[in-house]
């Protein structure tokens, strides 16, 4: 038996298949690591209900733990629901460097006529940007464009 901290470190080798710069720990989908009844119980939570990456993430976690010969069980939980608040600070920095704008506080998603949000361009830093579509290349992203450098970019949208 090793410490739970070592298991967490091991999990940092597992990256998100759709955003490979992020590990499952950065993403906040690993909720807990516990030692229960002679095995490690890894509790994970999906980002979006239909996120196809979850199966790969589960497989990836199983692989690194099997490689090291650990006994483990992976449990999925829905509550409390994953929100973008679970993204770590390191994760946000990695996203920005990778060219994906990290989530900004958007308030209540159901408010139609709220004030527009400001998403700085991850490429040039300009705040003069506009949303092209609320839905992007994956469930977790929206499609934006910078009005200064004119480059399109992905925005990891706020979910809460």
């Amino acid at each position, binding site marked *: 038996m090793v410490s739970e901290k070592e298991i967490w470190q091991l999990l940092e080798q597992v990256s998100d298949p759709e955003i490979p710069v992020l590990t499952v720990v950065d993403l906040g989908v690993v909720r807990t690591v516990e030692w229960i009844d002679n095995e490690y119980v890894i509790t994970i939570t*999906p980002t*979006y*209900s*239909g*996120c*196809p990456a979850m199966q790969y993430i589960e497989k990836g976690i199983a692989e690194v733990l099997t490689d090291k010969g650990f006994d483990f069980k992976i449990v999925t*939980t*829905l*509550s*409390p*629901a*994953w*929100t973008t608040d679970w993204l770590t600070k390191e994760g946000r920095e990695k996203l920005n460097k990778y060219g994906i704008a990290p989530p900004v506080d958007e308030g*209540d*998603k*159901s408010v*139609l006529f709220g004030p527009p949000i400001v998403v700085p361009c991850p490429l040039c830093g300009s705040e003069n940007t506009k949303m*092209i*579509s*609320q*839905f*992007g*290349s*994956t*469930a977790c992203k929206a*499609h934006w464009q910078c009005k200064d450098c004119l480059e399109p970019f992905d925005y990891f*949208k706020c*979910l*809460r």
Partner: protein
Amino acid sequence: MEINKQDALFEFVLRIADDSLILGHRISEWCGHGPILEEDIALTNIALDFVGQATNFYDYAAKVEGKCRTADDLAFLRFEREYKNVLLVEQPNGHFGDTIARQFFFDVFRKLFFEELAKSTDEELAGIAEKSLLETKYHLRHSSEWMIRLGDGTEESHAKIQESVDTLWRYTGELFFSNEVDALLLNEKIGVDIAALKRPWEKQVREILGEATIEIPAHAWQQAGGRTGVHSEHLGYLLTELQYMQRAYPGMEW
């Protein structure tokens, strides 16, 4: 009719799951056919959310039923009369405005419904509702924005979306269907007081339609049947496509 708690819960969860699956399948039919690329992607993403939510609800329904059926069995191996989705969600996509109007009516309902279900004493249901609600807020904003854009848009878009609303209005009443299943579960603090959602639904729908300069149809005739398994002709065709693989190659896996 006497109904026990387990049967009631199974039926209740199945209704939510069927609404999600059938609407998710309908929206997925837009994949590759969207009016613009961004919209194609948006609709496909929304479809994915619905199918994901359906999976969670079917998983739970299968567990509640306790007859060794799986989520896949429930999704792919039931007959038309066993589906309990509302008629609204099985209506054909029609043109883009028809799809948006159908989605808008349903999204307003779904948000109110999940807000209540998230308070259920059934932790598993509350958990799925809480998760789904976050996604539903995005869907609602998407469909509301399009209602306004189409209604308050050109003469042609206005006429088309008004017609969509006129046609689909008759299926909105069934969203608030409830029977002894709901009564029993409401009593157990598991279910939702669905009838109580009608007022806030109407208020929100009126608000957006007002903004969109769309009139609410004067006719009050409402069509129902889906919740009791009596569907429009459209569901059979949809299921034929949805179930094709499992019917042609029973038990096949990817």
